[in-house]
């Protein structure tokens, strides 16, 4: 659920006003970059939660070790 929200959040919150360049940027290229940005955001999200999960496991492991 949070995962889905994050994607929607990252996709719709920052509605971007496209600047004008004198070359035709190629709409496909912008969509591709949006996708790459999204993939990177999801990657970052997964990394963040993976780290949290690892920390959690470590904590549990350490507690168990102390016992």
């Amino acid at each position, binding site marked *: 659920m949070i995962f889905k929200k994050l994607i929607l959040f990252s996709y719709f919150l920052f509605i*971007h006003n496209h600047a004008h360049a004198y070359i035709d940027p190629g*709409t*496909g290229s912008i969509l591709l970059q949006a996708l790459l940005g999204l993939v990177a955001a999801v990657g970052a999200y997964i990394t963040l939660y993976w780290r949290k999960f690892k920390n959690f496991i470590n904590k549990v492991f350490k507690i168990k070790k102390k016992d």
Partner: protein
Amino acid sequence: MSKKNYEFGSFRDPAGRIFYKENNVYREINKNGIKRFEFIKKDNLINDLIDNEYLVNTEVSEINENKIILKHEKLNFISYPYEWTFTQLKDAALFHLDLQIFLLNKNAKLIDASAYNIQFKNNKPIFIDILSIDKYSDGEYWYAHKQFCENFLNPLVLCAKKGINFNNWFRGNLEGIHTKEISKLLSIFDLLSPTLFFHIFLLNRFEEQSSANPKTTNRKLNTTRKFSKKSYLNLLNQLRNYIKGLENKKIPSNWDNYSEKNTYTFKEEERKLEIVKKFVDENRIGFLADLGCNEGKYSEYASKQKKIKVIGIDFDLNVLDRAYKKSKKDNSNFFPIYADFSNPSNNLGWMEIERKSLIQRSKFDGIIALALIHHLTLAKNIPLEDVIRWLTSLAPSGLIEFVPKEDPTSRIMLKLKGDIFPNYTEKNFQDTLSKFANIKNISSVTNTERKIYEFSIKS
């Protein structure tokens, strides 16, 4: 007062235009471009770019509220990407990405990704279009991404993955290799590379979808999120790493081992080197063209002199690429470019003068054409008189080697064709050369009667 000559090829950016005056290069920046230039000037960015050898030397020549005139350093020779070898284009691509990364860290960006904005100075790429630099706004996309792929990535991939030289294709299109064209050539195994999958295959898919459904695409575009600077830099770095690892797929060529396989003896080579040295010194050559240069051995003496610039022209991309790498390593002034003399770069683009022909850009102090004319006359059937007319039009002085039919190389050329060139004789060569120029010296080179003629143009 001498007249301003506007550069016809400098029209794409309405903010400014190049013009030439008294043999100098200037850029006129109009009202639309003043804001952009003020940003570049601010915080010393322009000097940072010049000091870090990213930008050609540039100074303000005139300034008022309606326009700014900049004076640019004049480069010896303007070459085009379709005249570059694989490594030259690769160096230009890496340079472009490095410049983007440098600029982005200073909150600036490049608004286009044209390979024509990069030239070579002392074998190092350098940026020539200051108006392509502008302020970066937070969240912006890389608008020139597709142009970068077509000007740099796709031609390099064509060479590295498919073993097809990009030059003639690039020259035919001028904007590089279209994504939709190269995507058709990639195999399923090629697409296992994330770079090729995203920047060629998927980019092409998105482009196709965009043109098929423009309304839906427009809706999507209006809802795209901001592109973070971190993502922008990641994208540039990913492409940089990929391109850095690309290697030219070896395609064997006729002249690959020419310097080892040729029919000259060591003594003959020494003799030729001596003649070139004497010619360069006596004529005080500053800008020399080595035509049919191979690896540039015979112009090496000239290219090692600090004051002499040498352009080597040949049609074998393998030897040219090796020559470029060697020249970079030796830090010499030899710059090799690709051209087939029977079909050199012509006037191209808008009004057929946007990109100039090789002949129009060829204004040398001297030329050397050693072991060249038989390749044009005997192998390509070009009339001897036309070859001599062309050679003597390139510079006020030069060396031309006459290779007779009895020479082993000529014999190989005529073996299947037969001797269909009764006019190809030394006597005719000498008479024709005398028509266009003064013959200053004739030196024997080999036992097979190869001779080097030194000419100077009649004043």
